[in-house]
């Protein structure tokens, strides 16, 4: 995963709260291998009618070039399906800006280089007003934790460990393997002090 510090792109506003992971990618698409690309599944049943024809008024259909999504509170609520993040990433998104996020979604986002930028309700409303039904140039800066659209600059919240990970594009398995001795020691100690925690040794 490549790290990044700044992004310039186009932002679009999707004015819904509680966009859940079943909306981000309906379950029936999740047996698809990732190599086929998940972008086509993003918000599939909101963007398209029952026959699969695109709704021309849906913000993402009007603005297919967007790379930053501004949305309502509790974005990504629901299941742990990382496919919700794959759909956004494969559709070209680099960031979602919202007043709050589902906990598991946000962690999954960071693991795939997608920024979950948490802003205040006021800042979200200002961004939404600026964007309206159109798109606008937007720039994001992970160093200053700010997002700028035209003359409007707002700050976003981001866990420091997540910021570091996004900037460096770190992979956790590599990081963890530096601690392999501590892990082994911990496991050995646990097997001794809590033998009941190990199913095969407690028989």
């Amino acid at each position, binding site marked *: 995963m490549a790290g990044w510090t700044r992004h310039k792109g186009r932002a679009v506003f999707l004015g819904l709260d509680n966009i859940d992971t079943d909306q981000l990618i309906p379950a029936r698409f999740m047996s698809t291998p990732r190599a086929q690309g998940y972008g086509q599944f993003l918000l599939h049943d909101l963007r398209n009618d029952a026959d699969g024809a695109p709704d021309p008024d849906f913000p993402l259909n009007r603005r297919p070039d967007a790379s930053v999504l501004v949305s309502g509170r509790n974005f990504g609520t629901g*299941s*742990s399906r990382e496919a919700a993040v794959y759909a956004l990433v494969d559709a070209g998104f680099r960031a979602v800006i919202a007043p709050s996020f*589902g906990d598991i979604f946000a962690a999954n986002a960071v693991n*795939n280089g997608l920024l979950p930028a948490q802003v205040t309700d006021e800042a979200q409303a200002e961004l939404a007003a600026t964007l309206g039904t159109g798109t606008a140039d937007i720039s994001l800066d992970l160093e200053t934790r700010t997002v700028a659209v035209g003359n409007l600059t707002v700050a976003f919240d981001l866990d420091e460990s997540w910021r570091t990970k996004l900037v460096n594009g770190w992979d956790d398995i590599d990081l963890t393997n530096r*601690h392999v001795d501590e892990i082994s020691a911990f*496991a050995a100690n646990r097997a001794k002090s809590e033998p009941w*925690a190990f199913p095969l040794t407690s028989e």
Partner: protein
Amino acid sequence: MAAPRTMLDKLWDAHEILRREDGVSLLWVDRHLVHEGSHHAFAKIAARGLKVVRPDLTFAVVDHYAPTLDRTKIADPKIARMIGTLRDNAQAHRLRLFDLQDQDQGIVHVIGPEQGLTLPGLSINCGDSHTSTHGAFGALAFGIGATEVAHVLATQTVWQRKPRTMRITVNGTLGPGVTAKDIALNWIAALGTGGAQGHAVEYAGSAVRALSMEGRMTLCNLSIEGGARLGMIAPDETTFDYLKGRAFAPGKGWEKAVTAWSALVSDEGASFDREVVFNATEIAPTVTWGTSPEQALPVTAAIPDPARLDPEKAKAADAALEYMGLQPGRPLDGTPVDQVFIGSCTNGRIEDLRAAAAVLAGHRAKVPGLVSPGSAQVKAQAEQEGLDVVFKNAGLTWASSGCSMCVGMNGDQVAAGKRCASSTNRNFRGRQGPGARTHLMSPAMVAAAALTGTITDVRRFLGERAA
């Protein structure tokens, strides 16, 4: 004297291998549960040439795509491939697999406890948000995404920042026909689906203590619908009684284990970041009317009028009512349903089937429905008790175990525009199938809806039935 600690503190400390300067902990994982949906994670470790580092602590189960009606052949090649991929991965990494024909197969959050794989004091992860279920035993259990699943497969650890603590206390006694499901829908309606975001919820109070393990699992299961990645309940005699003699529960070390588990309570005077208190006597059978679990009301209430809600909620309510095809102001009770579903990791356990069967016994359902037990063991137990006959005589379909119509991945779906009274966990748009309309409620309430063909207050039937 040491400062009083919460149950979360104790569980966290027991699993923390190290804490980085930025405050993120590396936690040891005692049990890792995988299912067909874990294919992305297996692909990730395969791409790096890695093996599952602790196959003895990793357990695989076919549930999300499990056929419930005919297991002899799987017509849909995509579903067959998903199950086949899990089999291949389980074999390649030498994992214990609970496969379709296994007498111990079932939904991952039902069979974990049933097998005694879930124990107090363990840390349990699974690539499924309802992993919070296992917290009912006093375990540190939370759902993770595919990248984290791959990480656990490769290292048997997970990086995690310690959540804030929240205690939900439910005092008093639940009324007849009111269940753990109603406690959960009630608090989620009060606090919102984001209400417990960033927190680990500990459930306490006399009403929680009085719950069976099945009820406690239902309550912890639904924590994620209120935004909490973790839900937990301190283990007690109810917990130990449930676990004793289970296949993977400790045998000769039992007494020592119980001693250790008994200490997993929040100390007197331990402080929580947030405390919320509910009165059990004020909780009624609760039903969702919208497309988010927070859009729930007592069955005695009217369908809300968006014009009377605060503007923040009005827009969502408007959209939800349109999707659900409901009229504001009409009573919820009496809303016609097309079908019912009883099952899922939320309410697919033996106690749930007993509660539904008690309402249905000797009667015909007015609408069709599917009953999918949470596990093959639950199914066998129900058949031993004759519950299957009650469901079949009522006209409902008695099926095999899997996630089934809760998520529709296996093809068990609600058709577009159809309304389903469902014992499941999510009423999201399209959750049970594109265009499906879902009303969440307890299994007994689902049974009442089946009897009348409408959303119905189950308490109406309790006088004449074994309550």
